[in-house]
């Protein structure tokens, strides 16, 4: 798992500078397309812990953004909440740049067998 929480590496810093006036949703999209599997999470959220364990258990290496530790994470959180229309903002999972959804959608897609092909397609899963 890559935690992009407090990294002030070049890429991330430039992203932050560029996105000063950018819509948080666009940020989300850009961040999501940056890796094969992207999880927006909160460090204190137990459900986020569950979704992380799910992907790690499958052998996937997701990129995790802890929104309580990312600068202007609050905006992203609010934006995600609006997008999902649900009570909670996190966890939200993107695979191959495409939105999979919150925990229930992730579980459903795993059970109905659509998640694994998606992961393979995105290159996150090799077996």
């Amino acid at each position, binding site marked *: 798992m890559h935690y992009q929480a407090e990294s002030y590496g070049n890429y991330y810093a430039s992203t932050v500078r560029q996105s000063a006036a950018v819509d948080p949703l666009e940020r989300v999209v850009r961040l999501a397309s940056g890796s094969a599997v992207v999880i927006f999470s909160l460090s*204190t959220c*137990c*459900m986020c*812990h*569950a*979704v992380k*364990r*799910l992907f790690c*258990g*499958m052998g996937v290496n997701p990129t995790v953004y802890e929104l309580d530790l990312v600068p202007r994470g609050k905006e992203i959180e609010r934006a995600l909440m609006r997008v999902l229309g649900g009570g*909670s903002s996190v966890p939200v999972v993107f695979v191959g740049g495409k939105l999979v959804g919150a*925990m*229930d959608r992730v*579980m*459903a897609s*795993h*059970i*109905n*067998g659509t998640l694994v092909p998606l992961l393979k397609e995105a290159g996150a899963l090799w077996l």
Partner: protein
Amino acid sequence: MASHRIESDLGHIPYAVPHIIHPPSTFINQEGSAFDFGELEEAIVLQTVNDTKQPLYTEKPAATLEMFPSWPMRFHHTPRGSSKSGEESTDSGSAVHALSSRGEGSRLELESPVGRKASSSSDHHQMIDQMHHLQIPQQLEVASASNSPRTGISQPQLARPTSEKRRGAGSNSERMLDAKTLRRLAQNREAAKKSRLRKKAYVQQLESSRIRLSQLEQDLQRARSQGFFMGGGGGAGGNISSGAAIFDMEYARWLEDDHKHMTEIRTALQAHLSDGDLRVILDGYITHYDEIFRLKGVAAKSDVFHLITGMWTTPAERCFLWMGGFRPSELVKMLTAQLDPLTEQQVMGIYNLQRSTEQAEGALSQGLEQLQQSLTDTIASGSVNDSMHHMAVALGKLTNLEGFVRQADNLRQQTLHQLHRVLTVRQAARCFLVIGEYYGRLRALSSLWASRPRETFIGDDILCQATTDLQMVQQSSQNHFSNF
């Protein structure tokens, strides 16, 4: 008159005093339906012993057994053995005649004992064999009922090796015979009495547990229909919240609907309906399941503890509880053994379902563990000063429980839907029938367990009987299972 004939023709045969073992009525009552070999053996031996001692024709027979006074009742022993048998073989001849007449009616009057030569052993054997078949039931009853010393002539007509042995023995062993045999007979009597008592106790226990089971089921039905509504919050026993009470009521109704759906599916399968019709029925059943998950979602908002502790289920189901319900991977595992032969694609589908449910369950369990750890930390920490604050934080964390129960139910729902997708309509119908019956049996197990006999005043053998009793009750409610 017939007896006269016998006497005149077989002159040297003394008149056979109808010699019947006199059964006191008390003995008959005691026996009831149990046949007692201990007393039978005793009766035979005692008769043997007495016959060697007492002279013949000493007492009158009991009036009750003298059913046909004109035909004297006689007993005769087996043809092989001592000289006594030879002496009385002619008696036996007439006895055969007499007794067989009881069974065969007037026909035998024509049969003349004259024609039978008592000395001809082969005929004699034949007659004795016939007698065996006719007489044994009567004889056994009479012999077993008696406990008193024999009166009158002869020995019972039963080829008992034991009595032969004794007859063959010399006068020397007669005394030993008495002591040992009497002791053994006494022991047999004891054993017989004990087994009678045990049987009675077992039967009583069986009856009482059956009554209790039916009562419990009635109570359960009544409670279900009333919906466990103890006036949530109010009243003395108001330890169930209104949200929980409402859910329990709705769940009870759901179970009844479930039963109806299952019956519908079962009849549809047996009637070999078309796939299209079956699909409609099956979709209805899936919707029925969706309904309970929706209800659980509503209940989780108002009382998550009621769901997660499994107070809405029966004890046996609670034993297997995982996050407020059944464990999907366990269900799939149970089904793989029950499903029909599957195509390779289906096998892969079920295998993948098994694996994905296991992974999802593991992830959710770990998430819940983290929640519990965090809650523990919050409750444990905190000084007296800011205890309220910590309580508030803990309360906030508790709200996450609802999320986990929701996700677990979501997992269960998705599992059922996936089963519906992987299998053909017919297979899916059978599969859901299996699921319904499985949980029905689990619920029945709970009620059987609750009503199991628990008396310990009877000995160990009754405890063993209790388990067989339980099995018998289960077997007798096989129909009950199929109703589920």
